[in-house]
């Protein structure tokens, strides 16, 4: 039998349904792979007992002919999602030992549909980072390495554990979250597919908040069909989240493989940023050619406020984060430091419990909301955000989706961008605008760079039009025929 861990989610679910193998078998295969891949540091918690218990329950349901759409499929869960009774830290020391007495809506939806939980995946602390280096539990290694080099590369962030585990065949798919690019950038860096759906498509209930108006859950998988399959289960209106959209979830899988002839694909002029590597530029042109060949109409569009997306994001996100993270105060859960007075306990708890990047963003967020600066920074950022959203609305008059590179570079070495926070922030230059506007975006692996590292292309669509994205992503996937796999240096 082909290696069970190398299957796509779609094929695995089919194999399980037709009883070619059992949920327990495929789960054991993944648990073994996880054990052998601990040097990647992708998982923060492994839950083998729970996984086997869920797998056996899946087998029992399959035997009764009752399986759900993900029945028996072993998945990983980004540690941002609360899992009942299983430590959930969001990559932070301040939540060390925290066991939520509840299950996030997104993961509950997956378990409802029969999926099996393998464990919790490492991530940048509170999802703040683009390299997974801000995790309190150490950075995750990208399974990919530059040709002829042993240097550890970043899998991207903040969903670095998710991307790394999916790329290294440690799970069939993984939940992830995207506030400014945290699904799409790591997917691009690891040769995987990652979709951030429309804001409000997936419930945020039980997902540890970073920036509430931007955070959105989505899957990282090994194929476009897998992403559609997994996102369908994760999505759905949730009355427990006021920002959850009261809409039906389409069967996204039906859109993959659909004819894309006649779809108008926009190429935004302003994404041709200075200093963009030639390889990225070429890949983008290749993507345009693929879609043109598939019958799409290519149109040039303008999103004039694109360059202001990142600075606006770096006000809005830290502002919301500074408030969202106030609850980590050592009083009711998580880490509590010592101190002579209440104030000292607060200050020491948060100084010792949070890492540098989180503290930096809390300070910036606190500053931009403070008296005298609110209008100049925060309010202005919200207005610029509106301008950015308006740009997209105008673009939709002439096109149905946008094609852009996912990232300005391929995966870089761990430790490479430590010196200047802004350099690190620039990683998200192509992904952030969709978050500000609440639009869906998907990254599809499209090729390798000169060093043999994966590169991704991004498609951005209209709100609630993930269907078109899946059709176009399917066309790109087919044309790119990306089959490369990282060498298994870790096991």
């Amino acid at each position, binding site marked *: 039998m082909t290696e069970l861990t190398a299957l796509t989610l779609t094929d695995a679910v089919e194999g399980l349904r037709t009883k070619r193998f059992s949920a327990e078998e495929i789960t054991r295969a993944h648990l073994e792979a996880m054990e052998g891949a601990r040097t990647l540091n992708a998982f923060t918690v492994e839950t083998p007992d729970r996984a086997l218990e869920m797998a056996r329950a899946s087998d029992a349901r399959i035997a009764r002919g009752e399986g759900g759409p993900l029945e028996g499929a072993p998945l990983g869960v980004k540690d941002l*999602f*609360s899992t009942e009774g299983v430590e*959930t830290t*969001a990559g932070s020391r301040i*939540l060390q030992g*925290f066991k*939520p*007495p*509840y299950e*996030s809506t997104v993961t509950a939806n997956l378990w409802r549909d029969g999926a099996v939980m393998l464990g919790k995946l490492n991530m940048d602390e509170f999802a703040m980072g683009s390299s997974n280096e801000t995790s309190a539990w150490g950075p995750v290694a990208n399974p990919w390495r530059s040709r002829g080099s042993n240097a550890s590369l970043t899998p991207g962030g903040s969903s670095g554990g998710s991307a790394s585990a999916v790329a290294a065949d440690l799970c069939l798919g993984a939940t992830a979250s995207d506030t400014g690019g945290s699904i799409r950038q790591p997917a691009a860096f690891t040769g995987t597919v990652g979709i951030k759906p429309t804001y409000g498509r997936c419930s*945020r*209930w*039980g*997902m*540890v*908040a970073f*920036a*509430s*108006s931007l955070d959105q859950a989505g899957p990282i998988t090994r194929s476009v069909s897998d992403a559609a399959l997994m996102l369908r289960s994760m999505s759905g209106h949730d*009355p*427990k*989240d*006021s*920002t959850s959209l009261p809409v039906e979830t389409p069967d996204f899988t039906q859109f993959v493989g659909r004819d894309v002839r006649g779809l108008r694909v926009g190429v935004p002029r302003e994404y041709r940023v200075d200093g963009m590597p030639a390889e990225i530029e070429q890949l983008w042109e290749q993507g345009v050619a693929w879609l043109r060949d598939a019958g799409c109409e290519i149109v040039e569009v303008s999103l004039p406020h694109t360059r202001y997306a990142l600075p606006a994001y770096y006000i809005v996100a830290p*502002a*919301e984060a*500074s*408030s969202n*993270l*106030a*609850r980590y*105060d050592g*009083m*009711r*859960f998580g880490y509590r430091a010592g101190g002579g007075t*209440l104030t000292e306990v*607060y200050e020491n708890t948060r100084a010792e419990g949070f890492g540098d990047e989180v503290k930096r963003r809390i300070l910036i967020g*606190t500053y931009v*909301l*403070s*008296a005298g600066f*609110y209008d100049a920074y*925060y309010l202005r950022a919200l207005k610029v955000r509106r301008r950015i959203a308006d740009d997209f609305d105008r673009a939709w008059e002439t096109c149905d989706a946008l094609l852009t590179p996912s990232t300005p570079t391929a995966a870089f070495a761990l430790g490479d961008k430590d010196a200047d926070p802004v350099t690190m922030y620039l990683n998200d230059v192509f992904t952030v605008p969709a978050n500000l506007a609440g639009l869906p975006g998907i990254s599809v692996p499209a090729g390798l760079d000169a060093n043999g590292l994966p590169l991704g292309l991004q498609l951005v669509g209209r709100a609630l039009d993930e269907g078109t994205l899946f059709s176009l992503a399917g066309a790109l996937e087919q044309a790119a025929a990306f089959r490369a796999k990282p060498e298994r240096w870790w096991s």
Partner: protein
Amino acid sequence: MTDTLIQGRTGPWEIVLGLEVHAQVASRAKLFSGAAVGFGAGPNAQVSTVDAGFPGMLPVLNRFCVEQAVKTGLGLNAQIHRTSRFDRKNYFYPDLPQGYQISQLYHPIVGEGALEVERDDGSTFTVGIERLHLEQDAGKSIHDMDPHSTYVDLNRSGTALMEIVSRPDMRSAEDAAAYVRTLRTLLRALGTCDGDMEKGNLRADVNVSVRRPGEGLGTRCEIKNVNSFRFIMQAIEYEARRQVEILEDGGKITQETRLFDPGRGETRSMRSKEEAHDYRYFPDPDLLPLVLEEAWIEEIRASLPELPAARRRRFAEQYGLTAYDAGVLTAEDERAAYFERAAGGRNAKLVANWTVNDLLGRLSAEDRGIAESPIPPETLGELVGLIEEGTISSKIAKTVFEKLWAGEGSAREVVEREGLVQVSDTGALEAAVDKLIAANPDKAEAVKSKPQAIGWFVGQVMKETGGKANPAVVNALLRARLGID
């Protein structure tokens, strides 16, 4: 408006008062979570993971609380904002689990309105309402359970509050108390807040400043969380005098938050909260704009009960009551309902007298409300009916009232059983009168030249008949027999 000036060493000072009243919404569940609202449960027994600010927990707004805010806004004749928003007020405190309070700073649900306030003497004045907004309550910190630690109970955390902010329209402690009393009556009539001040379900932040009459507003101090009428008045009086003393000594008032200490009758600075406040308000990204459909607002408007001020006017007109009696009888829904049931078809003024003076007097002496009256309204009405028809005298009625209070039956039953029917039968009374005159010839003689002394004879007959004689009939008989006209 009657201005109560403070006489200082250097001249008179005027007190300027504005109030922020926090009224707990009478809902079953909390403003943003499904945990119960209540009093007296065990610690943390009414707390959800939303109220405790757990990671990933999100707020969803309670429809009933929104409806109560609208209802209260309509009761205050205020502008109802079709669109309002929720903001976060950020600060750290152990009983504030999220690290912020969800409130409405920039776009409150209710805007400007006005409340007509009635003083004890029946005179009225108007207080402007600046706004009413919805917000969450905090939990409770208990400082005396352990010398080294504070104990936190989050039962109250997340409970819905309506913060009702007045204009600085009051000029005396009495008027401030009258405002809170009138507001409380309105809230209770609307059913939007139970007004229980002892349980902290209604509490006031009082903004106090003083100025020379005719001058601009002075610097104010805010006295937090005062929870009784008496304390409101004490706090204001103390604080106003404190400010006058500082100003007269050439000092300046520092704007600050102060606490009223009921034990000492003083206000003092809340030193721990003195550090520069910067609440960093911003729109709560977990919540969307609250948009009210016009139809819903109209539905709520149509459901409003008769409000105390309108009822007070109606009582005065329809029943011919004094302003005072109308005020007392409309201060509570139950009182008004009681009165209207007792007054049906009777002399309403007389019923009002008996209700206000006898029944309410007696109830308040025993610290009971009218709902706990041992005399049902129909029975009190029956008693008044017996007086009206001349069956008993007002004096006898007092005796009957006592027996009714003791639960000895209906008014008519008591009167009949006890033989308290007023004697108007001339034959029976003639005999008594004749007997009395015969026994007191000298007094009978004296009364002819000094007619007002007839009172003694009337008294004697009443005594003789156990108070049952109809005094008017006795009087007429005596006059005839003694030859006075």
